[in-house]
Every structure is written in C-alpha cells, then in structure tokens.
C-alpha cells in the first residue's frame, strides 16, 4: 500500500448563514461561492477522506470522534434558529475513526469514539460537511475540540491522525471549522448591516489571512495565544484549530496558501482558505516551540490517593535508560569457528555470537539498540520493570540499532556499505513505522539493501526495533 498523505487543508466558517440564507447578504453569498469552490477543488483532488476539526463541538473527557457510519438528524442553531433547520445525513468513515482513537491512545491522549443515534453533531461540522461534501461521496471523520487541551495535546492529536492517514494510505483533506475573530454582534442586526465587529478585529483578521495566504501556517499557530487574547471572545474553546491544522501539515511554514473569501457573519470573521502542501518557498518560522510527539500531561485525577507530586513523577519523557535487573540475563557471545564478536556491541541475551561468517557472507544475529557496557536504550525503553508502557523515541532506537550493526561489521573488517539484506522487527508498526523509516532512509536507505519489515508482539528486552542482517563478508587473506 502507498503511504497516505495530506493533500490539502481548508479553513471554513461555522455559522449557518452560508447554507441557509446566503442570498440575504453579499458577503455571505461570497463565502458560499468560496465554499463551493473549495468543494470542487476537493472533489477534483481525488481526496478519499475529509477530516473535520470543529471548534463548535467542545469536549471535556479528551477528544471525541464521530464513529456513527451514517448520522442523520435535523440541526437547529442555538442562536440563529430563526434562519431555519438543517437536515443532515453524513458518510462517516468509522474504521478511520476507531483507528484514530487507538492512535491517540498510543500517543498518550485521552479520546473516545461516539456512535449514538441522535448524537447532536455541531453546527460547524454540519455546515462544513454539507457544503464541502454535498453528495457525501467522500467519507468523513469529525473530531471535537477539547476545552482543556493546550498546544501540546492538540498537536499530538494531529500527529496521531496523520499516523493513521499514512498507515491506511489515504489521500486526506483536513478542515478546520472556525471563525477568525469570533466576536459577534450581541443584538440582532439586519443582514445588510453586517460587518466585522470592530476595526481592530478586522485588522487582526487581515494579518492572519496575509500569513495564511503566504502559506505561513505554523506562524499563525505560534501566534494562536496572542490572537485569542486579541480578537476572540473568551469562550472555553480557544484558538486551537491552527495548532491542529499546523500539526497535520508537519508544522510547516511554506505551504501554498490562497484566501478564497473573507467576510463578516454577524460580526465574526469568516474566511475560506485553501492551503496546498506544495512548497511555496516562503521561508522559515520566526520562532519555534517544542515539537511534541507524545502527550504526557494528563494528570491521574481520578485516583484520590495520588497527589500532584506523584503524578508528576509518572510523566514519562523518552530518556536513555538501563534495563532493570529483572530483564533477561546477558551472555558472553559464543565463540566458534568463523564467529565475529565485538566488545563495542551489546552483549547477547542468549548463547549466540554477534555474527558468523559463511563463505562470502556475514550473518548477524538480531541487533537491537542497547548500548554496550551500560545496556541503556537510546530513546528509552518501551515499558518499565512492571510492564507499564512508557514513551520512547523510535528514531533514536533505530539509529542505535544501525550504530550497533556498524560496530559488528567493522569488527569483521567491513562497514555498513556491505549490508545486503535486512529483516526488521517492530513491536508497534502503526506508531513507529514512520520514524523508523525516516532513519532508514538517511542511513541504510543510502546503501540500498533489500528489506522486510515485520510487526511482532514483543522482543526479549524492552526495545521497539530489532534488525536481522546479511552482509557481504570482507575478503580474507
């Protein structure tokens, strides 16, 4: 299967005016036309999945993901109920929803799927899906905006989503249903009188759109807190969608952006923006925040016996850590004719050599990332001595495996360039394949051996990756 990818991103407004009464205001009409343009572009792109992050669906227990394959109901807006009702019937990719939920869990997030008859899908999602996918030809998935989530949690949510996009080979489009400035008029207005609530809101909106038009999505993400303070009503759901959308786009700042429309909806800033992944060459970010891979901030608040200090201790960061004494015993490598053993490689966990020479070939025993001498695991072990899962860095582990292979080959008088064939074993293919693959591409991928990658249940030590190598044997005298 080909690797999945994000083939486009859109920012769209949430209020029902664009679907119910676009003809009542020229601006609403232009937003509707931009919505229609976006829908056509999505259709023409060959997208096979729409992913909606909606700011009008707040959640508390982590993030929630719609998993009802065909939710149907009639939606009425809490404020604009006099504009009419919106019947909906959507085509939801329940398999993707469940996979995303599982991927969230693997990255330390709390989330759950929702598949109940009559569940009230929020106005932002309903408007976005009705207008972007009018014939329901593209399966969709909808995720809530967690009121307690900050940047790290929202970024990791995006990365978990992309784990599934890539693993399932999807051509996905990401959509944030949101306002820019969200300050509406607090009294009814005539449609003809609609405008952005204040000049200050309008100026901020235009600055945001200037950035987005230049494809500088991550810059907007990093300004989210400032933007929220300046032009957002202090509702519980902050200006988070830019964090999520930037995370979906690998926190890039050089996308190709186009603002299709920008207008007021009852005073709030509504825009339709298209962000294409094609590099625009715009440039680097002004500054950068930590790039979080795993969310470790959840407090174990349900357990009254633990206070905050204990909870803080339970937060696990990927660190190089020695295997505890209750791991498998370490052995001296066995010596035999044609065996190759190295003091620079980690000791075996059984009676076998590091490698064996047979004719023109070297057969290496399975090589993991443990470090010789300390037995520590770069990137951290995958679980503690009690079996509790830990966060770990697959890239660091993969690099350490390749370093160990190099040491063994050098002991035999060769080098990494001699590798002919590799069988790799991963304990968590969904989580780790991408990171493993990136390190591979930069190292053994430059050498060009054949490769087979397998998912397995466990390895003898708490590591995530091991490689079995066949290499050319250096010529002997």
């Amino acid at each position, binding site marked *: 299967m080909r690797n999945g990818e994000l083939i486009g991103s859109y920012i769209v407004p949430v209020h029902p005016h664009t679907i119910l009464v676009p003809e009542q205001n020229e601006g609403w009409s232009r937003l509707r036309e931009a919505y229609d343009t976006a829908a056509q572009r999505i259709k023409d792109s060959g997208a096979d999945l729409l992913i909606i992050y909606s700011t009008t669906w707040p959640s508390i227990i982590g993030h929630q993901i719609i998993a009802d394959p065909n939710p149907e109901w009639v939606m009425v807006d*809490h404020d604009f109920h006099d504009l009419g009702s919106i019947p909906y019937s959507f085509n939801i990719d329940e398999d993707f929803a469940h996979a995303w939920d599982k991927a969230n869990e693997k990255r330390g997030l709390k989330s759950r799927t929702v598949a109940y008859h009559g569940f009230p899908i929020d106005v932002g999602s309903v408007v976005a899906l009705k207008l972007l996918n009018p014939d329901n030809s593209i399966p969709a998935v909808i995720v809530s905006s967690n009121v307690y989530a900050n940047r790290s949690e929202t970024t990791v949510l995006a990365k978990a989503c992309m784990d599934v996009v890539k693993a399932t080979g999807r051509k996905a489009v990401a959509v944030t249903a949101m306002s820019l400035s969200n300050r509406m008029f607090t009294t*009814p207005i005539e449609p003809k009188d609609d405008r952005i609530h204040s000049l200050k809101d309008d100026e901020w909106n235009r600055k945001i759109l200037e950035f987005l038009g230049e494809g500088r999505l991550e810059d907007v993400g990093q300004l989210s807190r400032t933007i929220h303070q300046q032009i957002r009503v202090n509702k519980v759901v902050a200006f988070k969608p830019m964090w999520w959308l930037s995370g979906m786009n690998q926190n890039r700042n050089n996308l190709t952006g186009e603002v299709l429309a920008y207008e007021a909806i009852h005073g709030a800033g509504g825009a339709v923006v298209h962000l294409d992944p094609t590099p625009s060459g715009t440039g680097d970010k002004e500054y950068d925040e930590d790039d979080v891979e795993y969310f470790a901030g959840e407090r174990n608040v349900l357990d009254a016996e633990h206070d905050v200090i204990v909870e803080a201790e339970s937060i696990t960061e990927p660190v190089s850590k020695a295997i505890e004494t209750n791991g498998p015993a370490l052995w001296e490598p066995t010596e035999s004719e044609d065996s190759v053993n190295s003091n620079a490689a980690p000791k075996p966990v059984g009676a076998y050599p590091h490698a064996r020479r047979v004719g023109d070939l070297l057969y290496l025993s399975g090589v993991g990332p443990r470090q010789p001498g300390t037995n520590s695991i770069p990137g951290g072990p995958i679980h503690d001595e009690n079996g509790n899962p830990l966060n770990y860095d697959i890239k660091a582990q993969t690099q350490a495996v390749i370093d160990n292979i190099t040491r063994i080959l050098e002991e035999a008088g060769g080098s990494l360039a001699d590798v002919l064939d590799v069988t790799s074993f991963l304990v968590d293919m969904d989580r780790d394949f991408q990171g493993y693959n990136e390190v591979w591409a930069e190292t053994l991928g430059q050498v060009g051996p054949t490769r087979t990658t397998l998912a397995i249940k466990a390895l003898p030590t708490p590591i995530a990756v091991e490689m079995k190598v066949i290499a050319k044997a250096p010529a002997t005298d």
Partner: protein
Amino acid sequence: MTKGEIVAGCLAPHPPHLVYAENPPQNEPVAEGGWEQLRWGYERLRESLADVEYDAIVLLSPHWQTYVGTHFLGLPHFKNLSVDPVFPNLFRYHYELDIDVELSQQIHDRAAEAGLATKMMNNPDFRVDYGTITTGHMFNPGWDKPFVVISSNRSRDYYSVEVMQEMMMELGRVTREAILASGKKVVVLASNSLSHRHFTTESAIPEDMSKEHITSHAMHLWDMRMIEYFRTGQAQRIIDEMPEFTEQAIAESDGGGLTWLLSTLDLPTYPGILHGYGTIIGTGNAIVEWPARNHKEA
C-alpha cells in the same frame, strides 16, 4: 387578577450523571446507581415542594448558550431525543415538555422593554438542551408542570462577570415582575453547578463512587464559602463576590443563572435550605431551595 408569586427559588444543577444514575425509562443507558448524595438531595427538594401548589417552572440553563441576546422557548410543546454532546455514554433521554408560552412571552416582552436583547425560539425542530432536560427531570420527573426555558446569554464571555451580573440582575427583576403580574405561582430554577473544574478522564465505570471527589481543595473552599452564604441569607455577598468566585472556581455561575435566580428572589436575606451537596466528575454541585412562600412581603 390575583397577584402572582414565586413560591420557591432553587439552585438545581444539571449534570446528566444524576439522570443516568436514576435509570428512568426515558434514558437509554443503564447505571448501577451513583451520586446518591445529590440524588437524595433532589428527593428532599421534591418532598419540600410536594404540598406546594404552583403553575409553572421558570428555568435558566447554561447549556442553551446564546450570544445574540436572551432567548425563550416559544412553542407549546417539545418532543425529541436529547443526547449530551459531552457524555453521550450517559445521557440519551427521550423527552417531552410543555411550555407556558404565555408566561414566556410576558417575561420576554418585559425584558425587551427593559432594553435587553431578546428573541423567542419558535423553530419546532429545535432540540432542548440537556441541562434543561436534566434539571427538569430531577426536579419534576413526572413532567406535569409547564416550563419557561430561558437561554444563557454569554455576556460574561463577551464582557466580564460584572456586565453579566448587571444584565442578569435586570433579567431577574423583569422575570419577577412578569411572574407577579401573571397571577401565576411559579418555581424558578437556576440550573448550574458551583465550582466547575472537571476531571479530564472518566473511570471505566462512570458511577464508581470511589473515584469521585472535588478536583482541588481550593474548589472545595469556594463551594463551602458559597454554601455558607446560601444558608445564612447573604445573597448580596454572593453577588459581591461573584467575580472572584466565577474566575477562581471556574464556576458555572458564569452563565448568569445564579445571579438571575437571586435577583428573581429580590436578593433574599432569609436562609436557603441546603438539600444536598456533592461532586460530579470533580465539579461541585449544591441543591438549594429558598422557600420564598414562607417569606412573603408584609
């Protein structure tokens, strides 16, 4: 016409867990109980009013959130399925409720005359929010009284607690005037919690009471402070401290319900009756009755 009367005002919180734990036939999920302290509190409230005659219930729910003014349900009958968007695993309730449209319109009109932005909600497809349904069920599970349902104008979000209080004091005043002018006997309900910091995880068995407690000591202190004011008739102090309480306890009083309730009762100086207090997924919830019928003006 006989002068109308507010027979009681109640703080009547709406976490759906309470309905879930009651296992009424209208709710789809099934529970093994839980949150008994609060459910018994609602029992005591119902018993307190069992022999009191009244015509309608006027309720302000923080989960019908409106940003363009204050809205009122304006059709005589609503029937639908209410699914909590946050706890759909607990609350999927088939409801039917009647609206006292006449009284609703009267309060609406007086609020509009007082300069508040208002709107009647006349769309028959509208789903009544789960806060209204939860409080409605726990207060009156027989659903045999008509309601006036008032939205929560999020003026606190737009401006400040102070502005919210100004508007809710005014809305409470006109609500009281409309009730007195209507000739009807009415119970007014503010459907909100006190401290409102949730847990962000849920136990495998939601009704596992070994996992239930307040989220922090500070939240507990604020809740007890408010309850002390409730029990000693210090409504003005509640109003005065509302900005600090709302900010520091992340209190659901931000929706305006508590201020509105106290205003409809003309800032009572008599003690409120604490029928129950308990936490729900970490939030603080009190069931309090101000028996206004026993404190009529001379």
